[in-house]
């Protein structure tokens, strides 16, 4: 979706990389992403192999980032966990965008639906993210799919609200009126004329949702209502490491850093995307 819109603006990448923080964040995020995706190859050890003698070994030559309470290699676990955390973040970003786009377009286009849908969006946004996610996961049950589903439901209203507001602006533009005068169907108008022109704010917001979702997933896992505790995610790693905080603080330090670095770089990338796609907003920062 983004690629189609971006490839057409030759100046886009220039604008995006003009701010060094954005270039750095993008570089960092790509490194994290590649390392996690290639965890099977890159990880120095099997993330599940236990070793009683290596329990709580501090970072060193054998275990670069130490070993946990079962003697498992933290770096390997971190990379495999990252794959799960990033998958959840990406899944939530994509699914919540899809749901939000549909709801937002319907609300923006059909005045009869708008009242009910806007009320629903407001009601859902009134709940704190984590509380709503906990409620949904406890209804659905804890698994990766259910966590993605729950967080997608939590974040879809943010996209829906933006899509609705943008739709209300774009649908009044003369080229939409021209499309109606030509006899184009409502579906063509919604997709070709409205959706294609509001891609930028959606991409920006879904980048932020990617970050929020990773953070929320960590929170859920930490609270024990997220994915199955046997599946390593950055959240479950912190939850497990918490018990040994006085003996082996590195157990929560490294997953904590992983979360912070990923979330921060995503936020900076999101800001950069927003500025590059709409230079008029750049001053707000």
């Amino acid at each position, binding site marked *: 979706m983004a690629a189609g*819109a971006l490839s*057409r603006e030759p100046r886009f990448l220039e604008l995006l990389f003009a701010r060094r923080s954005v270039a750095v964040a993008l570089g960092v995020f790509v490194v994290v992403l590649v390392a996690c995706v290639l965890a099977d190859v890159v990880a120095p050890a099997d993330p599940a192999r236990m070793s009683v003698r290596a329990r709580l070994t501090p970072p060193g030559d054998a275990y670069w980032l130490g070993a946990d309470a079962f003697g498992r290699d933290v770096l390997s676990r971190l990379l495999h966990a990252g794959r799960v955390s990033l998958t959840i973040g990406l899944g939530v970003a994509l699914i919540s965008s899809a749901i939000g786009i549909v709801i937002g377009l319907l609300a923006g286009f059909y005045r009869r639906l708008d009242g009910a849908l806007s009320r629903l969006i407001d009601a859902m946004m009134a709940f704190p993210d984590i509380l709503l996610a906990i409620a949904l996961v406890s209804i659905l049950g804890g698994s990766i799919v259910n966590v993605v589903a729950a967080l997608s439901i939590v974040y879809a209203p943010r996209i829906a609200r933006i899509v609705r507001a943008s739709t209300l602006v774009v649908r009044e533009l003369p*080229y939409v*009126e021209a*499309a109606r005068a030509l*006899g*184009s169907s409502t579906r*063509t108008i919604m997709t070709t004329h409205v959706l*294609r*022109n509001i891609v930028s704010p959606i991409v920006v917001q879904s980048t932020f949702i990617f970050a929020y979702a990773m953070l929320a997933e960590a929170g859920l896992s930490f609270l024990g209502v997220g994915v199955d505790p046997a599946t390593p995610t950055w959240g479950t790693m912190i939850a497990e490491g918490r018990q040994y905080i006085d003996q082996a603080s590195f157990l929560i330090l490294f997953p904590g850093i992983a979360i912070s670095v990923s979330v921060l770089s995503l936020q900076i990338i999101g800001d950069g995307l927003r500025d590059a796609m709409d230079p008029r907003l750049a001053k707000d920062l």
Partner: protein
Amino acid sequence: MAEPLLQIRDLTKTFVTPRGTVRAVDRVSFDIPRGSITGLVGESGSGKTTLGRTLLRLVEPTSGHTIFDGTDLNALDAAGMRRMRRRMQIIFQDPVSSLNPRLTVGAIVAEGLVAHGIGTARERRERVAALLEEVGLSPDHMSRFPHEFSGGQRQRIGIARALALEPDFIVADESVSALDVSIQAQVLNLLLDLRARRDLTMLFIAHDLSVVEYLCDQTVVMYLGRVVEVGPSRDLYTAPAHPYTRALVSAIPVPEPGGAGARTILRGDIPSPLSPPSGCVFRTRCPIAADVCAEDPPVAVRAGPDHIAYCKKIEAAHDLV
């Protein structure tokens, strides 16, 4: 004379706003003869743009009818109206916002053909290429985006888009007001060419009377949502009947020193459409208003062949329609 292409009858569009009801178009009736260019003039806020939209049913009228070639548009269902759209098109004022910035020129011009399932992709391409040439652009421009063009070129793209469906009738809504004067002339001449070549009927909405005088066979003058005078342009400019039209015509600049005759200067501003004056809406600014003007709305008065004005003060001198 043959039946007019469009018969507009008591067309009314009211908008309900938080501060009250606005009658943007109020019981407007006139005919647009086949093959003619009809000019629609009035100040900003006179309802001319809304009228253009309402008679194409881009805005649903509150009441009244547009009879297009014998068919009452307002009696058509959505599918019927969609089919009818092939025959009537609109060219917009703003050459920037009237073209979707994400589409290529080829896709913009072909949109109507796609919407009505006309031709194969290849046939559509050929047709778009021919249309671009017809409006003075090059077929190579098809793969470019609107932002790569100047205002005048963009307006030509908008014209090509409107022509793609080979309509009988085109509303040109202030289609040259956003352009430089030299470009205006080019685009106006293009419209005149196209009219002659394609036998088009046009409604040309403008606020520049000299442009309308040059271009149009018939002129309709609107004030505060109402038609005040309709007539053949020649008569209307040489012998305006309604005091508002007289003021407008006397305000047209004359390119000779001392050439301008006595000018009628209107006092005050156009009243708020939320609370229009009773009776004749123009009476608050009319130089010849009398008490009788505040009572009922004026009725149509014949000022000449096909020339009608709505004014009580001139009723005495002319026949009632």
